Structures are given as structure tokens and as C-alpha cells.
């Protein structure tokens, strides 16, 4: 199983955890980003994620590589979904294994921060009364009409 996934299906989180598990690893930290039912006071109906697929995959690979270089981890897996996602569904999942726990936490946090900053993926929020492209992580949201 690939440890870097850009997929439209539900993420198989248990499989990714097992993919990073090794006999020397005493710690496995994970992070899942889920669709919230509200944002800036708007009642969110669902989200649509669009990706520049080949580059998004490449940047996810780079982030995993950098995490391996920067932190004393054993392994890392990252999955990101594209397409329509309902409330409470996970759009992104990261699993990191390490011998001791600080590295797993640090690498997990590093990976999600970098994903939000660097991966060419965009989410459009469909809320009661409209839709808007979210521009993050600065969230300098312009109104791009429709």
C-alpha cells in the first residue's frame, strides 16, 4: 500500500497506521482533519476539494521526506481526499511512528502545517445560502462570486 495517497474514496486510516508500525516504534501519533459543520458563523452543508493532482502528490511526497529528515521518526503516511466531503468526514489523515513519542507528535504537526501551506488543494464551502472558495491558511477570503 502506498504511504502517500491522494484519493477520492474514504481514507483507510487503520491500514495507514499499520503501514507505519514497526517493531522498534514505541509511539504512533495520528492527525485527522475533519469537515466541520460550521465556519465563520456559516452553517456548512458540505465541502468540495479540488486538487492539482500530480503536483499535490509530489508535494505530499516532499513533505513526508522532509518530516523523515527533520525528525527522528521511523515512518510516515499521508492521505488526502479530493471531491465532495460531508460533515465529520476526514479529508486528511497523517500517521507517524517513532521510537520515542516527541518525534511522532512533532512530525505529525509539522506535516499538517506544511500540507495546509504547500499542497495545491483547494476547498469550496457550500453553506446555507451560497458557496465560497476558502483561501487558507491566512484565510484572506475574497468573494469570488458565483
Amino acid at each position, binding site marked *: 500500500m502506498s504511504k502517500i495517497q491522494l484519493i477520492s474514496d474514504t481514507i483507510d486510516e487503520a491500514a495507514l497506521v499499520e503501514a507505519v508500525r514497526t517493531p522498534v516504534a514505541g509511539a504512533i501519533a495520528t492527525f485527522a*482533519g475533519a469537515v466541520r459543520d460550521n465556519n465563520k458563523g456559516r452553517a456548512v452543508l458540505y465541502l468540495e476539494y479540488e486538487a492539482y493532482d500530480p503536483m499535490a502528490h509530489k508535494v505530499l511526497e516532499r513533505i513526508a521526506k522532509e518530516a523523515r529528515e527533520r525528525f527522528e521518526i521511523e515512518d510516515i503516511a499521508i492521505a*488526502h481526499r479530493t471531491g465532495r466531503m460531508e460533515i465529520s468526514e476526514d479529508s486528511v489523515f497523517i500517521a507517524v511512528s517513532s521510537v520515542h513519542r516527541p518525534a511522532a507528535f512533532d512530525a505529525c504537526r509539522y506535516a499538517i502545517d506544511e500540507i495546509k501551506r504547500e499542497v*495545491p488543494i*483547494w*476547498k469550496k464551502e457550500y453553506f446555507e445560502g451560497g458557496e465560497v472558495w*476558502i*483561501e487558507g*491558511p491566512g484565510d484572506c477570503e475574497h468573494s*469570488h462570486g458565483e
Partner: protein
Amino acid sequence: MKVKVQLFAAAKELARTDRIDVELPEGATVSVLSETIGRQCPELHELLPVSRIAVNQEFALSDLQVHDADEIALIPPVSGG
């Protein structure tokens, strides 16, 4: 030379297309490309200053020279995760 620029998300919606063709002088840089896009597509005017340009699937610095065979994309502020 003519380069193709892929558009995504807000940029795609504003320009009402997922690809624009931009005519550039040989040896033009990313910053020249960006200015040219702005003149050609005024509807992207607001988005361009906060966007990045990717050349061959990597974020490009503004002084990088582009070539007609390059894979070029306009990357509005990302919001994955």
C-alpha cells in the same frame, strides 16, 4: 512563444476556463508571465498578487525563466488539509 497556464479553483471559476494560452517573449520570467496573465485576464487581477506560479509542478521564484514546453499552473492560496 506561447505557454499554457492551468487554472484551478477560484482562478478557474473567475476566468471561466481551466487553461489559458499566454503569448510571451523568449526568455520571459515568471514575474513577466504573471503580469501578462493579469493584462490578459483582468478578472484574475485580485487573485494574482496572492497566488503562486508552479513550473513543472514546483513553486517557481519570480526570476525563473519559463519555456514553451514547461507545465505551468497558477496556484491560488491553497486550502487543503
